[in-house]
């Protein structure tokens, strides 16, 4: 996934590319070379940490969805916010969104096909990961044979009152 984001971030005018989950957690990100140069030139400007920006962008998407929700329009999939110092473009896919921070002089329309392609690749990557993961899960939860070939090893201290399950503290 990081390669896909790095590929996006190398385009001129793209300051950063990130994948963020709906709850605002930054999954992966890549910073463009142009942004690095600009921040060096205006070093007094406070650089917004990408994690903070991801969380705030997620909050903004939530606000827009709550406002548009009563209109029964269905879930939007692309959001663009243009401001005086940057442009945010987000493209929503399963439980996450791709977030690009652009230079304010860049037309967000120019990123449309790039983002569509990147989202397609990320979704394919996630699906491939899920398929591999489900295969491993199947192996992990496969029923044991009647005669196990390997005995389980007991690690850690034994509890005085017998074995303690992990959920015991919650009950």
């Amino acid at each position, binding site marked *: 996934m990081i390669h896909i984001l790095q590929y996006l971030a190398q385009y001129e005018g793209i300051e950063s590319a990130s994948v963020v989950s709906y709850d605002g957690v930054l999954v992966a990100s890549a910073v463009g070379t142009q942004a690095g140069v600009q921040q060096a030139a205006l070093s*007094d400007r406070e650089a917004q940490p990408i994690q903070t920006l991801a969380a705030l962008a997620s909050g903004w998407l939530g606000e827009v969805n709550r*406002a548009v929700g009563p209109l029964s329009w269905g*879930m*939007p999939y*692309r959001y*663009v916010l243009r401001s005086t110092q940057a442009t945010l473009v987000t493209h929503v896919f399963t439980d996450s969104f791709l977030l690009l921070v652009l230079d304010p002089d860049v*037309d967000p329309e120019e990123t449309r096909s790039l983002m569509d392609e990147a989202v397609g690749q990320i979704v394919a990557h996630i699906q491939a990961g899920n398929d591999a993961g489900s295969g491993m899960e199947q192996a992990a939860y496969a029923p044991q044979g009647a005669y196990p070939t390997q005995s389980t090893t007991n690690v850690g201290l034994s509890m005085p009152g017998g074995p303690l399950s992990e959920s015991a503290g919650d009950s």
Partner: protein
Amino acid sequence: MTFFSNLTSKKRIRAALRRLSQDPTAENYVAVAREHVVVGNLQDILRVCSEGLSLHPGNAELMRIAERTRQLQLDSRIRTLRQDLTLSPRPALWRELCDVLLECGRTQHAEETAQQWWEQAGGGEPTYYRSRGRCAQFFQGRRASDGKVAWDLALEAVREMPGDTRPLEVQYEIAKACGAWADARKVLARILEIAPGHPQHEQRFRDASRRVHGSKSLRAALAEVEATGRFVDTPENAGGPSNVAIRPLLKRMGTDVDVKAVIFQRGGTALVQGLHGATADRTARAVREVGAGTRSSARRMGIGRAIEVTVEGSFGSLAIAVGNGGTAACWSRTYMKLEHYEALHSIVGAGAQPGGSVA
């Protein structure tokens, strides 16, 4: 432009002028201005717009054409100045370039240009222009850090140009905008030392002295501006064209087959074109909430003042222009067209538009 197209354009201009002489309405002035746009005579466009605006003040379309033309003139001047600077860099050219960039609203470019000037030649004048560029960014984005940097740069310029009041005036503008009256009074006292007896500065000094009790420190005042997004003396709903001038623009946008609805909202009033009854109320409320939420989110994210939001989905696309004069939105069945963006920005009077599709 070929000879034939030039000839036909002149014919069309003459016909538009004839219609204008028979009926000098705002629409006919707009028609003449548009014909001049085809030919590309910037001076003629400005002359027609100026004449039209003197008869029909506040007409949004004429104002938009005039503003765009002025922008084109300034762009051309910027190109010339940049070329001249590569050949023979000198203070007068740097100064003019910074002034033009500030006038265009390209505040970051103005600051970067002043920085280049400062790196080449040093001195107080480039520092003053850096402070002006950053001050303009503070007024656009309302970020406390921009205000503080502009203040410090102006202070540096004051040290380098002790007999010049201009950097002090930058400091005064910042202090006055955020309500740091004690700092404003100190700055005005220094201005009056340099230019004693200046009636405007004396009046400002008396005004600041009246308001100095209980005023905040500069840091606290700047932080409050960033938190609220409002300057001290800014009224709630300032500026913008009247609703009477906006209605024809909404109607014109609504005639497009792709457009489902056009909404303008300011304060508690909403004008809706294309929807009726409860649906119109609900949509206007949603637009207002998106506008308000976006304004505060953009400030929190530190990306300056929000200008425009576009949301796309199975419903089509909804573009919302956010400006000082209210919020204007267009709901379209397909992708939003460039002219719709331009119309929305002309309605809300969003002064500083970044380049790209809106310019």
